[in-house]
C-alpha cells in the first residue's frame, strides 16, 4: 500500500529536442488502480520505467509515501515492472521464474518453493512449476509473469500493456484476474494501455497522455461527459464537433443557437469554442422542441443492438445512435428534427 506522487517529472532523451515525458504531475493514492492511456510513442513506457527506477528522470521527483525514491536503485525500490512481452527467462523452469525475485533476496529455497506454489495458485495456474516457459500459451505466460512480480510483494506493481498480446477471450479472463488480485492484495497498480475501453473497464483513474504531456487525470466516466479537449473526446470515441461561439449558457452555431447547462460547464472555455455531444445523446424527433434544429438523414446503418444515423444539418454531418430495434419511420432522405439536450452538450476549446 503505497501512495505515489510524480512531480514535474520530465525525461528528455539525448539527441531528441522534444521531451518524451514533459512536466508530469500525478497523485496516485494508495491502493488505486490507475491507467496510463495514450497513443503509441506518447511516453507511457518511459514514465513507467522512471517509476521503476530503470530510467533516470531529467527533471522532477518521484515519492513513495512522501519519501523521494530517486536515489533508490530499481532493485531496492519495490516498484516491480511486468513487461509487455512477458520476458520469462527461457532457460529457467516456470517455478524458477516465479521464484527469481526471492532468490535474489537470498530467501531459503524451501520457503521459495512454498511461495511459488502459492503464487501460481493465486494466478490460477497450479501444477505447472516444472514446465518450461515455451511450453505455455501466451495467456499462461502472462500470468506467470504476474506471479513472478507479485511474489516479491511489491509496493507498486507496474504493468506495461498487460492485455495487448492476448486474444479477446483471454483478455476478459486476465482482466478479471487483475481486478481480483488488486482487490485482494490492495497493492497500488499502474498499467499502461493504448486502448480506452480497457482503461475504462479496469481503472479507478485514468491518466490521459498525449506527446509526453498529461492531458486529463480523472475517473473513467468523466472522459465521456467532460473531455478536456477535442482530441481527448475523439480518443474516447467522440465524433460530433461543431464550431460555436459561447456566451455563458448560450451557444451560437451555423445552424442555430443552443443552451448548455451540463454540470461543470462553468469551467469550460468561453468565446470561440467547439460544441460536442456523444452520438448516443443526440435525440431524433424529440417530444419538446427546445435545443432543436432540422436535418436530413443521409444514411442509416443497422448494427444489431442499435442503429447508427448520419444526419446532414446544412453542410455539417452529425452522428446519432438509437438503441433497440430499427425504426422504419426514419429512412434515408427523410427530414428529421435533431435535439441536443442542454444537460448533455459539452464545450471544448477550438483547436
Amino acid at each position, binding site marked *: 500500500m503505497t501512495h505515489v506522487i510524480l512531480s514535474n517529472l520530465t525525461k528528455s532523451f539525448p539527441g531528441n529536442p522534444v521531451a518524451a515525458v514533459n512536466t508530469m504531475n500525478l497523485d496516485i493514492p494508495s491502493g488505486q488502480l490507475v491507467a496510463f492511456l495514450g497513443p503509441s510513442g506518447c511516453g507511457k513506457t518511459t514514465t513507467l520505467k522512471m517509476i521503476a527506477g530503470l530510467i533516470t528522470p531529467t527533471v522532477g521527483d518521484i515519492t513513495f509515501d512522501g519519501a523521494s525514491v530517486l536515489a533508490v536503485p*530499481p532493485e531496492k525500490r519495490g516498484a516491480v515492472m511486468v513487461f509487455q512481452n512477458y520476458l520469462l527467462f527461457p532457460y529457467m523452469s516456470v517455478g524458477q521464474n516465479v521464484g527469481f525475485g526471492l532468490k535474489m533476496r537470498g530467501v531459503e529455497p524451501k520457503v521459495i518453493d512454498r511461495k511459488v506454489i502459492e503464487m501460481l495458485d493465486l494466478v490460477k495456474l497450479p501444477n505447472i512449476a516444472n514446465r518450461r516457459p515455451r511450453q505455455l500459451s501466451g495467456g499462461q505466460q502472462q500470468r506467470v509473469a504476474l506471479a513472478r512480480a507479485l511474489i516479491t510483494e511489491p509496493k507498486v506493481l507496474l504493468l506495461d500493456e498487460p492485455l495487448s498480446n492476448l486474444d479477446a477471450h483471454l483478455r476478459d479472463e486476465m482482466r478479471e484476474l487483475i481486478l481480483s488480485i488488486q482487490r485482494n492484495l490492495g497493492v497500488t497498480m499502474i498499467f499502461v494501455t493504448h486502448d480506452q475501453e480497457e482503461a475504462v473497464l479496469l481503472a479507478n483513474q485514468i491518466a490521459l497522455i498525449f506527446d509526453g504531456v498529461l492531458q486529463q487525470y480523472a475517473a473513467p466516466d468523466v472522459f465521456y461527459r467532460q473531455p478536456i479537449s477535442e482530441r481527448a473526446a475523439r480518443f474516447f470515441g467522440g465524433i460530433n464537433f461543431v464550431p460555436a461561439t459561447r456566451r455563458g449558457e448560450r451557444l451560437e452555431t451555423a445552424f442555430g443557437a443552443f443552451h448548455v447547462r451540463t454540470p461543470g460547464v462553468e469551467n469550460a472555455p468561453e468565446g470561440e469554442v467547439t460544441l460536442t455531444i456523444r452520438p448516443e445523446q443526440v435525440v431524433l424527433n424529440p417530444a419538446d422542441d427546445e435545443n432543436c434544429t432540422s436535418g436530413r438523414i443521409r444514411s442509416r446503418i443497422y448494427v444489431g443492438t442499435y442503429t447508427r444515423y448520419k444526419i446532414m444539418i446544412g453542410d455539417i454531418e452529425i452522428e446519432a445512435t438509437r438503441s433497440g430495434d430499427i425504426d422504419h419511420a426514419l429512412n434515408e432522405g427523410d427530414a428529421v428534427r435533431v435535439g441536443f439536450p442542454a444537460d448533455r452538450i459539452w464545450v471544448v476549446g477550438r483547436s
Partner: protein
Amino acid sequence: MIGERWRIPLMLAPTLIIIVVLFFGSLGYGFLQSLGWQPNIGNTTFSLDAYATVLFSPEYREQFWSGLWLTIWVSLASTFISAALALMSALLLRQTFIGKKIATFLFQLNLPVPHLVIAIGMIFLFSQSGLAARAAAQLGMISTPNEFPVMLRDAGGVGIILAYLWKEVPFFGIVLLAILQSVGEDYEDLARSLGANRWQRFRHVILPLVMPGLLSSSIIVFAFTFGTYEVPKLLGVRFPEMLPVMALEFFLNPDLNARAEGMALSMIIAAITLLIVVAYMWAGNRAVQR
C-alpha cells in the same frame, strides 16, 4: 521432369560428393594407413603398431605425452581466456558511447586477418627485440634484450596462446555482441526491478542468455586451436611440441614407415578433438540447465 523422389538427393549431391570423397574418404584412407595398410610399399595387413609406437615406444612416448598435455593446455587456456576477455569487452562495447563505431571497427579488425599473420605479429611484438621489449627498454625496465622474458618459443606455449587471444577475442566478441544486441536489455531491467543486483544480473541473466552462443563458438575455437599447424610451428619449441606439428613431421619424414605414425597421430588428434567437444557440450548443457 525429374521425379520428386530424386529432387532432394540431387540438390545435395554436389556438396555431399565433395565432402564424402575429399573429407570422409581421406579420413578413412588416413585411418587405414595408420593401421599400417600401405599397398604401395607392400603392406596389406592391419596392425596397431603405429599407435603403439607413438603412444608407448621409449623413442616417442615422452615426446607424444608432453606434446599432448601442451596441446590440451594451449587449447583450453586460449579458449577460456579469450571467451572471458571477449565477454568483458562485449559488455563494454554494447553500451552507447561517443566513438562506438570506431571502437567496434578496431575491435573487429583482426577477424579477417589470418592466424598466420597474427602469429608473425606476435614475433614483432613480443620477441626479445620486439616492440614490447623496446617499450620496456625505453621505460628503463630492462637494459639488454636478453632481460626481456622469453614469451615466444617457450615451453609453456605462452606465445601460441597470445596469438590465439589476439584472434579469438574479436571472434567471441562479434558473436557475443550480436547475442546481447538481439536480446536487448529488457531481461536485465526486469531482473533489476525484481531485485537482482549487478552481479546477480550477470550471473543469472546475462550468462545464461549468452551461454549457448558462447558454447558453440568455444567449440569452434577449441577445435581450431587443437588442430592448427602454422601458429605452433612459428611460435612453438621443438620440445614439447604441439601435436599437429609433430604429426606433419612424421608424415614428411623420408622414411615411409614413419608415415603410418604421422597418420596415427593425426587420427589421435581428431579423436581427442571429438571427445573433448562432446564432453564440453555435455558439461555446457548441464551448466545451462542449472
